[in-house]
């Protein structure tokens, strides 16, 4: 019989411990012996209660076709029986034989999505374990993601549409920050779109709560093109400003329809940021030279900070007020960068054009494959490209 997590069968009585039951509910199929039946009729229904609960959750869902498979999860279309709604079921690949414990990504995702509920954050309906895998029942988002819309040249969109999408993104990010959660992987393909056009912040595999003051966090987060300068310089104490920078990058990309600062390496990313926004110096960013990976720039090479004119010229579609918002999201010094709540109070939202209504937004239909691809990918990974981001490496002990 399969080994249970903490108890084996009691020698004196031929009943299995409750935890064997937990284990067995998963492996009954493969055990093939009569032990599964023993468990069902055992006099210790306690573990079974959990099992039943778990099963009743699982039984409420019908698993449909496989939509996609990534490095860490398989995503299926699913159907919720009691409410007759379609859902996405993300099956986390538990490492074979539990050798490494549950992946930090899975833990983080479950941890935060269990607590956060907001129209612009992907909903986690249920979690259940079955066949030794963890299943997350997520909101079904057949509209694909923002990346698809940005890249598809057949899709036309304008300033009003961008305002609508950015508004939803900003509300989602604000909500996370209000709840002391940093997302740390905001990028167009983590912004999924519901059937009704609502943008949902997804993939909380890199999220964490704000650290206690003076405690260090890892700087190896956020996919490179959306990573703020303070993280590229190795800052270990940071704030919601990191997500705001990513938001700014998404904004710029929506306007330009190509990634705005797309470095090939971390160093290249820094130099591209300098070219675009100016070189970080003690003058525009007090303390920057103290950051661990700060690179001294020869004084003749220093690029002055880009002002309003630059943003207005570079992003004409945003209009001067939109360009001002973008500029405040891309401020080099994180302390001077606009916060999510300040961004929501910016006057760009209230001036014309008014944001497009959800139902009138350009949309992709039946893009559930794209959703599945986004859901099954590890954060920090860039579209199957060979360069793997170090973001998912566990930072043992270092926090």
């Amino acid at each position, binding site marked *: 019989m399969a*080994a*249970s*997590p*903490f*108890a*084996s*069968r*009691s*020698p004196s009585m031929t009943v299995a*411990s*409750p*935890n064997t039951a*937990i*284990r067995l509910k998963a492996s009954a199929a493969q055990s093939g012996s009569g032990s599964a039946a023993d468990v069902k009729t055992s*006099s*210790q*229904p*306690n*573990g079974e*209660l*959990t099992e039943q*609960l*778990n099963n009743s959750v699982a039984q409420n869902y019908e698993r449909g076709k496989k939509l996609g498979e990534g490095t860490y999860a398989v995503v299926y279309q699913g159907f919720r029986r009691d409410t007759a709604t379609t859902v996405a079921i993300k099956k986390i690949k*538990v*490492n074979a*034989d*539990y*050798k*490494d*414990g*549950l992946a*930090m990504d899975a*833990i983080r995702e*479950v*941890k*935060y999505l*269990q*607590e*956060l*509920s907001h129209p612009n954050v992907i909903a986690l309906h249920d*979690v259940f*374990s079955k066949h*030794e895998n*963890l299943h997350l029942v997520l909101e079904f988002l057949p509209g694909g993601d923002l990346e698809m819309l940005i890249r598809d040249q057949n899709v036309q969109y304008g300033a009003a549409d961008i305002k609508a999408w950015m508004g939803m993104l900003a509300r989602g990010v604000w909500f996370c920050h209000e*709840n*002391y*959660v940093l997302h740390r992987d905001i990028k167009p393909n983590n912004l999924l779109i519901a059937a009704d056009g609502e943008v949902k912040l997804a993939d909380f595999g890199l999220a*964490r*709560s*704000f*650290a*206690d003051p003076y405690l260090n*966090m890892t700087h190896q987060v956020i996919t490179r093109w959306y990573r703020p300068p303070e993280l590229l310089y190795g800052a270990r104490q940071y704030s919601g400003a990191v997500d705001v920078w990513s938001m700014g990058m998404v904004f710029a990309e929506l306007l330009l329809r190509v990634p705005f600062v797309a470095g090939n390496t971390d160093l290249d990313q820094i130099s591209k940021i300098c070219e675009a926004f100016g070189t970080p110096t003690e003058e525009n960013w007090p303390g920057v030279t103290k950051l661990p990976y700060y690179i001294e720039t020869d004084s003749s090479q220093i690029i002055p900070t880009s002002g309003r004119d630059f943003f207005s010229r570079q992003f004409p579609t945003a209009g001067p007020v939109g360009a001002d918002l973008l500029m405040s999201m891309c401020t080099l010094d994180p302390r001077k960068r606009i916060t999510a709540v300040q961004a929501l109070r910016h006057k760009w939202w209230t001036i014309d054009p008014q944001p497009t209504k959800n139902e009138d937004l350009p949309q992709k239909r039946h893009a559930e494959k794209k959703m599945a691809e986004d859901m099954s990918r590890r954060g920090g990974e860039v579209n199957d490209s060979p360069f793997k981001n170090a973001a998912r490496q*566990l*930072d*043992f*002990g270092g*926090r």
Partner: protein
Amino acid sequence: MAANYWASTQRRHWLFTREKLAETRDRLRDRDKVTHSQFPLPDQRLLNIYFNQQLIKLGKRMSTRQQAIATAQVYLKRFYTKNEIRQTNPYLVLTTAFYLACKMEECPQHIRFVVGEARGLWPEFITPDVAKLGECEFALMSEMNSQLIIHHPYRTLSELQTELSLGSGEIALAWSVINDHYLTDLPLLNPPHIIAVMAIVVAVVFKPSHPGGAFSSPAQSAQSTMAGVARDGNGMNMLAALADRTGTGPPRIQKLVQWLAESEIDIKAVIESTQELLSLYEVWEQYSEKHCKEFIGRMVKSKNLDK
């Protein structure tokens, strides 16, 4: 801290009334009366003291934060509201709770390292197979319905520090009182702010005689300071004063009473928690590590729970 306590799974799913908690445990016991009479275990609080000491030992070499230890203790409590302890190998559950709590509190440790440490401490009860721990982690998560965020009272304590102008001695004592409340059922019965306020009341009312000195380690218990207090009538009188909000006594305490009255905090819950804590310190005097160790060892061995 993450997310909002008032909307949290902790508040919605893991806050019990005393009656509910007792009922839950009775139901566990009724399911398996035989094992219960076969293996009488010491008072739950004494076991908790033992578990806590084991957790601290386990965390020692890994420079773990107190908050991770606290989270692990709450996981244990949650787990044992759904599972009969006599059906488990507490050492494995303990190690798993620690391992998962470290991940939750963003101070992850490698599974091999945790198993190695645990084996060093309890070689008879932990097998070298890391998959066991991984499997147990999975079960622990399932039992907790994957509701993993624990809101602790520590942050409320530091937030109230300035507002109530608490001295460093008082903060240290209150911190230790919070550490100790994990040895009781209080984390399942009260929201964290009640506990924080209770700890402050205790710290102010029963001020330590040697401020600062006694509390060097953040994992320290207030037991040494508080041991005599339980029998000492003084403190209880103060509590009585709190209860009727008359605000008699020294000005320091009057100020606190006034603040409490204005804060609309559930004073009854604060007082009940204080009494619970004081009775913990009474029970503590019977604590014997050897006793607990033997009891658990006998139970695990004779039921073959370590396999």
